[in-house]
């Protein structure tokens, strides 16, 4: 009886030990095999709950921001009129239209893209998308919106995947800084445009860029492009802001302002080229 009591006293410690064991097991190759059946069985319930919550949340936000929506609607009416006029002009430029079409056909030949919706935003700078193994997504696939880099697929479930944004503390990339005045229609080697190279790391609420050459002429507003082996191609990350002017430092640093606000994006495209 006494032995049973003493075992009960230590049950919490045994439980903690078991939890640590599970973490170690999860970090091994067995982890994925343990998670897969649970993910397969319970992800539909999670997605259903999440979608129901999103509907309520959207209505809640809409009611709270009703007045600002009316203002935004009026402003957007003007913007749509402007955009219609601009798009008509652009379509008239037949040569540009042809080159775009050619470019699009080249992209489609090389890679396959999966259109996917964002399900959830995590506090640690990750997002969950509603495509997974069943849609042919693999770990390492690149998530894009046009030529803008959104993130890299980090974990794949049967019907959902975890995408690591550049905001995540776990993400770091080699980048190049080019002038914002670059004319992309001219065929120029990108190396001739590079002002400086650098390294970007996520910091949850901002993207930090460091190791830019101290003598480089980088300035606020320059374009930051990802050129990293893990990404494979050159993609737009954002624009350079808050460039440091510390004469004592051996390198320049700053922040990168994303082209899009990551938390306002609804649809993204996954380029299928990763490996399992």
């Amino acid at each position: 009886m006494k032995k049973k009591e003493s075992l009960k006293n230590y049950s919490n410690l045994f439980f903690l030990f078991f939890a640590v064991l599970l973490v170690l097991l999860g970090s091994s190759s067995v982890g994925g095999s343990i998670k897969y059946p649970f993910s397969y069985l319970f992800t539909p319930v999670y997605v259903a709950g999440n979608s129901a919550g999103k509907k309520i949340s959207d209505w809640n936000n809409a009611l709270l921001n009703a007045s600002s929506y009316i203002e935004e609607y009026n402003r957007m009416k003007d913007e749509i009129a402007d955009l219609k006029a601009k798009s008509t002009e652009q379509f008239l430029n037949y040569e540009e239209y042809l080159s775009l079409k050619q470019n699009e056909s080249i992209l489609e030949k090389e890679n396959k893209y999966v259109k996917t919706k964002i399900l959830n935003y995590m506090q640690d700078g990750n997002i969950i998308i509603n495509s997974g193994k069943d849609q042919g997504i693999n770990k390492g696939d690149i998530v894009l919106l046009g030529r803008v880099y959104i993130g890299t697929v980090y974990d794949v479930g049967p019907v959902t995947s975890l995408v690591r944004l550049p905001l995540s503390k776990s993400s770091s990339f080699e980048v190049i800084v080019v002038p914002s005045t670059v004319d992309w229609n001219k065929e120029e080697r990108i190396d001739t445009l590079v002002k400086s190279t650098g390294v970007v790391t996520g910091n949850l609420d901002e993207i930090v860029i460091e190791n830019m050459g101290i003598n480089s002429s980088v300035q606020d507003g320059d374009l930051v492009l990802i050129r990293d082996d893990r990404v494979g191609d050159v993609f737009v990350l954002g624009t350079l802001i808050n460039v440091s002017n510390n004469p004592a430092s051996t390198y320049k640093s700053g922040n990168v302002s994303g082209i899009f606000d990551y938390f306002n994006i609804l649809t993204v495209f996954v380029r299928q080229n990763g490996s399992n």
Partner: protein
Amino acid sequence: MEVIKGLLFIILIFVLLFLESFFLRIFSFSIFVIIVISMKGRIKDFLLYIFLTVFSIILDSVMHTPLGTHLLVMAFVVILYDFLTVIIPQDSKFNYLSVFLFVFLYYILLPITDSVLQGGGFPNIFALPLLNFFINSIVSVCICAVINHFTKFVRNDRLSDRIRLN
């Protein structure tokens, strides 16, 4: 009877997961932590640990957190809660302070453990939505108080022959 209990447990898991994802999406609010603290001391530890393990693995699987993240955080806060009950008795009204700490620590430790296990290092605590965690913890304590109040009317089968004074 055991089969029915097993089926009920599976249905409970599905319903709880739906509610967990629903409330996490709307208010970043966890039902799981309230269920655990409410069941603590009311059911056998062994059963609680089974529930904790199964539901934690499910949450890790669907939320793409490293395996064992939820369980490790829960194990830690459960130990801390048991330690606090030595200082503050569970029957005392001050027990709600322990409940508050239990829930608040769960909310804080979860993103930290997730970040550390994913190799992202120790995150900046002040970058976390601490006010949101605080409000969620207060609401959770209120819900626990309501659950406590109502469970007083439910008599335990094993103690049915005893007279209760309160």
